[in-house]
């Protein structure tokens, strides 16, 4: 096998490697929960706290570190002028962390929120720990860190006040950026105390008292995004808005089929076109996660580069490129659907016996490849000079990009500086940093600073797609109408023939496997060369459609009410993975299912052609149940009137942000289920822009009603878990309204339209 062929076959290895790197960052943080705060000297006085995590924290604690070990970056700064500056450490991709992270610090600090300013922190994982946005993990992995950062500062300000007043700390309270001694009716503002507090020792973390939830003044409230003023006035926040001195504008043409290499190209003709400053053949590293081969055109403006590219003719060497075909994959899957797959994922009890004794139900489900399609197409600005590179990137994983870019350029990691910009949509696409690697390498090879701009067509042709797949189900209902057997032959894709491609795996514990006596999960892997990756609520976004729809088929076959049927499966309240607070809890599940049903008026009388559908899914530590209300007319014109959502993610940090995420998840879930699909032939995506990839528009967005059960479990993320139940809730509602069972997404395949 040639090196190129190896690259193609194992493209997914690089995706998995990227994800492991991101995961490693959060593991470090999790292991070192016992965080460590240090004072940082500030010109002009004031209190600043730098926050150490990871191995460095252990080292500092052990060595009784000296001044020069102090980090240049801080979590928060309180200035004698009364302003409080909080650095938001994570990428803002629309999930709201630039607001929610500072809210957590401000709550424990008892800061006056109206005086808080927020800035994006520098990308420096040594100081800040995990600095990535993915897996709905921003809140759970940073919750303790951020609370302690705020509580430490508060304790030092109180200590400064007690020194002043010669009273005990226990007699003091804090409110709205003031320390108060009620007994003597005295108060000192944080600004008055800042410089004095900075001279005090940092308290032992164990001595910190964190607030009870009932005492929260800021958390749980609806707080508008800190950057909204800049968004609505068109300020240059995004990656695409960055401008650096002397930069040239670059576009980069790669083979539309993954793995193609540059053969002949009319480079001399392109070099002569107006505005073109350079044309380069980039060999790249051969990894889709880094730099694939292509032709870079540099010009004096974006449009000059785009216009020149339209005249570019490249004969691609496709001897080792993807030849994948979606239509062939569908035919292959249908051929093996009736049998079990060669891989056994789970085999408990006796499925066949249980089915033969009762009522059998069967269903074959299909869902397509989809694109992330963030509205800001990939881009990156990079300046390589004297063996170092400076990058402005709209990335979800700037922390792991540091090492990745260094590797591509062949320079040490310390020579890479990344500036985190606001990100115009992530959805998992920007867990990868290919655009950053490309910009950095083009800048190095061209010898000038560049802004690399992908077109929409680039973005849709060079994605790490949500992988399509197939589920061939059998269910068994016993004489009492109870679901007793569950069989799923999952047909997915693999790049190496060994393991499923990223986002295309099925957990042996996938719901409802742990709750039924007889379960058989098997798997077939079809070959694939096109790169895939995490797409909002990876795995769950497709598995939930199939599982929750087929469960409804089972309850219909059993002539049971679906609400009661689902609750019966949940059984007694318990953790499915005992002792793990981030596993499914059947009590929490039942609670959200009941609440969604109640709020949606489950069981109410509806006119002909109108129906309710219920679905539940647990993912990203969030329990979500949703009820969709639809109407369908004789021509299959579909109206999604309303989706009622009940979720349990523990305490809600920013109610406005959390509701916005749920509303957006419902719209995204409907948009994708309704009309989004990528087909590919000869390794090429057939849909490359929004004219053939019809994202939902405002007239068809449903009313979304959101209810949270604010339990006292640790808070978890909300960017993803509300999405998976949307599609099956809608499909189950369509069945209720029409008797038509949707087994293939998107809905447009069956002729549904809005």
């Amino acid at each position, binding site marked *: 096998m040639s090196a190129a062929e190896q690259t193609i076959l194992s493209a997914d290895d690089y995706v998995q490697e990227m994800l492991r790197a991101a995961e490693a960052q959060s593991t470090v943080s999790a292991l070192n929960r016992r965080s460590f705060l240090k004072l940082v000297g500030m010109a002009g006085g004031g209190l600043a706290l730098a926050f150490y995590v990871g191995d460095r924290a252990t080292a500092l604690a052990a060595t009784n570190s000296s001044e020069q070990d102090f980090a240049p970056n801080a979590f928060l700064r309180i200035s004698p002028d009364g302003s409080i500056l909080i650095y938001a450490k994570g990428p803002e991709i629309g999930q709201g962390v630039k607001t929610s992270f500072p809210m957590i610090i401000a709550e424990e600090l008892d800061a006056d929120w109206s005086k808080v300013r927020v800035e994006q922190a520098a990308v420096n994982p040594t100081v800040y720990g995990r600095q990535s946005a993915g897996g709905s993990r921003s809140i759970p992995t940073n919750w303790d860190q951020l609370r302690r950062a705020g509580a430490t500062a508060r304790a030092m300000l109180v200590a400064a006040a007690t020194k002043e007043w010669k009273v005990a700390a226990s007699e003091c309270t804090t409110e709205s950026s003031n320390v108060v001694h009620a007994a003597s009716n005295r108060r000192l503002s944080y600004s008055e105390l800042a410089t004095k507090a900075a001279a005090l020792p940092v308290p032992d973390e164990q001595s910190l008292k964190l607030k009870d939830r009932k005492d929260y003044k800021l958390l749980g409230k609806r707080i508008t995004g800190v950057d909204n003023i800049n968004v609505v006035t068109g300020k240059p926040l995004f990656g695409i808005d960055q*401008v650096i001195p002397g930069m040239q504008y670059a576009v980069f043409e790669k083979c539309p089929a993954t793995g193609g290499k540059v053969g002949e190209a009319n480079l001399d003709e392109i070099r002569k076109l107006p505005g073109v400053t350079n044309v380069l053949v980039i060999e790249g590293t051969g990894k889709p996660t880094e730099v694939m081969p292509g032709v870079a055109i540099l010009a004096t403006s974006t449009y000059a580069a785009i216009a020149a590219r339209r005249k570019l003719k490249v004969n691609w060497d496709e001897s080792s490129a993807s030849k994948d075909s979606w239509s062939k994959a569908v035919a292959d899957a249908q051929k093996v659907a009736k049998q079990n797959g060669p891989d056994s994922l789970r085999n408990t009890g006796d499925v066949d016996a249980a089915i033969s004794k009762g009522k059998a139900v069967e269903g074959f489900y299909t869902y397509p490849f989809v694109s992330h399609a963030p509205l800001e197409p990939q881009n990156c600005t990079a300046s390589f000079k004297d063996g170092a590179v400076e990058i402005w990137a709209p990335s979800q994983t700037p922390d792991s990009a540091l090492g990745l870019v260094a590797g591509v350029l062949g320079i040490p990691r310390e020579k890479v500086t990344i500036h985190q910009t606001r990100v*115009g949509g992530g959805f998992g696409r920007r867990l990868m940093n290919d655009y950053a690697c490309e910009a950095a390498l083009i800048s190095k090879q061209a010898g000038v600073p560049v802004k690399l701009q992908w077109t*929409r067509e680039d973005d849709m042709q060079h994605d790490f797609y949500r992988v399509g797949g197939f589920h061939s189900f059998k269910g068994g209902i016993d004489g009492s109408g109870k679901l007793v057997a569950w069989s799923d032959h999952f047909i997915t894709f693999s790049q190496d023939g060994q393991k499923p491609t990223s986002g295309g795996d099925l957990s042996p514990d996938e719901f409802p496997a742990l709750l039924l006596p007889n379960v058989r999960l098997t798997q077939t892997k079809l070959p694939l060369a096109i790169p895939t990756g995490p797409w909002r609520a990876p795995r769950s976004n497709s598995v939930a459609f199939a599982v929750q729809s087929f469960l409804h088929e089972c309850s219909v076959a059993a002539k049971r009410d679906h609400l009661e049927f689902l609750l019966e499966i949940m059984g007694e309240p318990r953790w499915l993975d005992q002792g793990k607070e981030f596993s499914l809890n059947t009590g929490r599940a039942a609670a959200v299912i009941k609440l969604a049903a109640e709020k949606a008026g489950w069981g109410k009388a509806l006119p002909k052609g109108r129906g309710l559908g219920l679905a539940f899914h647990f993912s990203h530590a969030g329990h979500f149940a949703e009820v969709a209300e639809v109407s369908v007319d004789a021509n299959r014109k579909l109206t999604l009137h309303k989706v009622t959502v009940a979720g349990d993610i523990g305490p809600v940090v920013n109610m406005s942000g959390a509701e916005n995420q749920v509303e957006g998840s419902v*719209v995204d879930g409907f948009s994708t289920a309704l009309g989004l699909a990528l087909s590919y032939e000869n390794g090429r995506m057939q849909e490359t822009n*929004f004219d053939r990839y019809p994202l939902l528009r405002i007239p068809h967005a449903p009313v979304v009603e959101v209810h949270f059960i604010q339990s006292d479990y640790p808070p978890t993320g909300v960017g993803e878990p509300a999405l998976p139940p949307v599609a099956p809730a809608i499909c189950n509602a369509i069945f209720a309204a029409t008797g038509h069972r949707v087994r293939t997404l998107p809905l447009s395949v069956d002729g549904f339209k809005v």
Partner: protein
Amino acid sequence: MRLQINDKEHVVDGVDESTPLLWVLRDHLGLVGTKYGCGIGQCGACTVHLNGAPTRSCSLPVSAAVGQRITTIEGLASKDGKLHPLQAAWIEHDVPQCGYCQAGQLMSAAALLKQKPDPTDADIDAAMNGNICRCGTYPRIRKAIHAAAKQAHE
């Protein structure tokens, strides 16, 4: 070429006449609030006003904008910095998620309110249909437009 943008005259030299207005705004004039999303007039992220009418700047050659009155998101607030009622409503209702589409959404909504100060839901559907929000903030966009309209009445 002379362009009248946000009540100010700009001179642009050395730009091919066929260049879409979008890229002239962004690359030549530094007005980057107007966004590139699709390049084919499908997403609305590039919406500006041409003589008050919402226009997709990605599909308008700059030569066609000469002599016209152009307004971009940078010119939506009044000269003294007072936000347009829609901008204030967007903040009040915490509309944005990633925020990338919102300049285009605001420009379409502002043109709507000029024409119909008290729009119905159907008016909003018609006027905002050309603007995609990938994050799905449509329910809030609708609320904020109604709120801004109501506030202007009071």
